[in-house]
């Protein structure tokens, strides 16, 4: 390494000194009246704007949230313990904003865009405000491209489109985060040259952790790293130790970063994990600012808190580049109570929900998606044609099975048709089970679901269904890769393709049955 010559340093410093003339500064000030619990009341600041950034001493920033007759209520994004009554604060004239750009990918940042992964500063020239108004009707177009989650039950029955807002809801420990993480991992495919050839655009992911344990966030980041997903993912973490104001703004920061990709004609997916904690953080801040409490002590604008966030998910029209921002909000329920305040709010805002049930989870059906009450209001337009063809009857058959299952527990003499429905349903349920972190490419899903809905599984003993699927996909990959490739490329099942797939399945099923008997 070459020595740094003294004159070089001086030259740089002199360059910076040049143009630094004696100049005066005009700014507005106020005095801290009260501080504590992440909020401060400031006297003065008469010209302060709503959601303007305020500079406190010791490098702490705050945001104006309340403008009152004789004081200004601020939330603090930092250590409040160093700030004292009587301290002078300054207006900055800027609204709270986040540095954006590709540099954020692969990094863990806080809600203000500062890195927290100890891998050095992030340099970014472009800043976008954290609170942005969602786009209007003119700038949008209907959701039409699929966002593959890699989960059979979701891609088959609850298809999600790019630009959609799909809620993931369920009790604690039912695999909500797992669904979101699998989806992020599955986007790895969209970044391959293969996908590019097939016209599938890459999806950039943002995982916003709100109010979680730092250890959980570290685990998530590790897992994403291990799966090679951090290359296209940014993690925004406002953990349980961060002040409530940080947890409150973290999702908006996530949306802002997502919008950066969307506005550049690219596709982004943002996971808000979870909005229950964000609502709680907002409740804390609101009560401390003495806003009146409403139902469950949440402030009156808690609906708007989530609606304005989720409304930012969108699919842009072609003139604006056709980019999209898909949102996966996560809500945690208490004892499966979806009629609590926050769950009902977010259910009504989103374009559908994936409902995870603790009962199913404990019965070993994982992912524990309750197909009966999970919906996607975008529907078939977010599915490839091939999937639409094979999965069309899936939901119906599973719904009938769920009805019969309870009933059949009592009766012993059942007619043939009922028995057949039970047999089909139990096999389909078994088929939809899927391990964590093993998302499945859509062409394999099509083959797998096809085998179930076309009745090839009916004769297979229940305990062998998973082995059947595994071996079937292995055979497909080794001997019939052309069929898989054709499904992936054409995205449709032509009659000839269906016929050849049927032939392959008939042969395979026969040999599998023989192996079971042996």
């Amino acid at each position: 390494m070459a020595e740094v010559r003294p004159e070089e340093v001086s030259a740089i410093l002199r360059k910076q000194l040049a143009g630094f003339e004696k100049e005066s500064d005009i700014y507005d000030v106020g005095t801290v009246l009260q501080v504590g619990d992440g909020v401060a009341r400031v006297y003065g600041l008469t010209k302060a704007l709503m959601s303007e950034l305020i500079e406190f001493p010791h490098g702490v920033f705050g945001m104006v949230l309340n403008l009152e007759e004789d004081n200004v209520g601020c939330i603090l994004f930092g250590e409040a313990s160093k700030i004292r009554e009587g301290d002078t604060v300054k207006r900055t004239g800027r609204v709270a904003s986040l540095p954006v750009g590709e540099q954020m990918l692969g990094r863990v940042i806080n809600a203000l865009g500062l890195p927290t992964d100890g891998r050095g500063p992030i340099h970014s020239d472009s800043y976008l405000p954290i609170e942005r108004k969602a786009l209007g009707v003119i700038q949008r177009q209907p959701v039409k491209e699929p966002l593959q989650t890699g989960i059979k039950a979701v891609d088959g029955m609850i298809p999600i489109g790019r630009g959609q807002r799909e809620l993931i809801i369920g009790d604690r420990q039912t695999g909500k985060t797992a669904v979101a993480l699998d989806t992020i991992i599955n986007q790895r495919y969209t970044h391959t040259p293969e996908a590019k050839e097939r016209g599938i655009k890459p999806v950039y992911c943002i995982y916003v952790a709100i109010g979680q344990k730092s250890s959980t966030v570290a685990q998530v980041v590790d897992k994403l790293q291990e799966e090679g997903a951090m290359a296209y993912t940014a993690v925004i973490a406002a953990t349980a130790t961060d002040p409530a104001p940080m947890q409150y703004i973290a999702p908006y920061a996530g949306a802002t970063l997502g919008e950066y990709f969307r506005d550049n004609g690219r596709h982004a997916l943002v996971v808000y994990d979870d909005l229950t904690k964000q609502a709680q953080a907002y409740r804390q801040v609101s009560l401390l600012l003495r806003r009146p409490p409403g139902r469950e002590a949440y402030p009156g604008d808690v609906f708007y808190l989530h609606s304005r966030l989720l409304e930012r998910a969108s699919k842009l029209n072609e003139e604006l580049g056709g980019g999209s921002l898909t949102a996966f909000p996560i809500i945690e329920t208490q004892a499966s109570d979806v009629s609590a305040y926050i769950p009902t709010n977010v259910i009504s805002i989103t374009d559908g929900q994936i409902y995870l049930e603790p009962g199913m989870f404990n019965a070993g059906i994982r992912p524990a998606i309750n197909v009966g009450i999970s919906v996607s209001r975008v529907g078939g337009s977010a599915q490839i044609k091939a999937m639409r063809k094979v999965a069309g009857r899936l939901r119906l058959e599973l719904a009938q099975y769920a009805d019969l299952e309870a009933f059949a527990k009592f009766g012993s003499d059942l007619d043939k048709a009922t028995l057949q429905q039970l047999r089909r349903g139990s096999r389909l349920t078994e088929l939809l089970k899927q391990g964590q972190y093993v998302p499945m490419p859509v062409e394999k899903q099509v083959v797998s679901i096809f085998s179930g809905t076309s009745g090839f599984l009916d004769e297979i003993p229940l305990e062998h269904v998973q082995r059947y699927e595994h071996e079937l996909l292995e055979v497909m990959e080794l001997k019939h890769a052309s069929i898989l490739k054709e499904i992936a490329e054409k995205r449709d099942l032509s009659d000839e393709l269906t016929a050849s797939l049927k032939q392959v399945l008939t042969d395979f099923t026969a040999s599998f049955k023989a192996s079971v008997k042996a």
Partner: protein
Amino acid sequence: MRSQRVARRYAKALMMTAEELRLLDAIAADVETIGTVVRNSRELRLFLNSPVVSILRKRTALHELFGTRITSATLSFLDLLVKKQREPLLPEILEQFAVLRDTQLGIVDAHVTTAVDLTPQQLRALQAELEQQTGKHVRLNIAADPSIRGGLVIRIGDTVLDASLTHQLERLRERFARGASLPH
């Protein structure tokens, strides 16, 4: 905080009465008189603040103290305060009245901090300059603070004009820090 809001309303009421009776100057002088007494007498402040003393006795005391020295309008204002049990707010109300009076006369307070004492000539020049800038009469409040190293800091209301050496050095430090972290 809340007391300030109340004080402002009472001060405004007094101001409006004064305008109506065309006794602005007289009442302003009264306020000055009462203010001086209240500021200088701890006993009076404690007396006014005490909830134990009856309304009647407070009234009598105020009448005896100020009865001959102030106009009847101001005296009845004091009566009103006592009747409404807002007499502990008297110092704040007087303060707010002064603020309102200043606004009315177009006077602004400028708090000037300098590193060294200014000469009378410099002060006059500063005042003239500030009056021209603000378009109002400026009342200078000068304080010396060597920690600003040089230059001066002027605060009018919530707005600060910072032309101190310390501030400029601070900004220079920030600029260097930013420049040093740029990628090569």
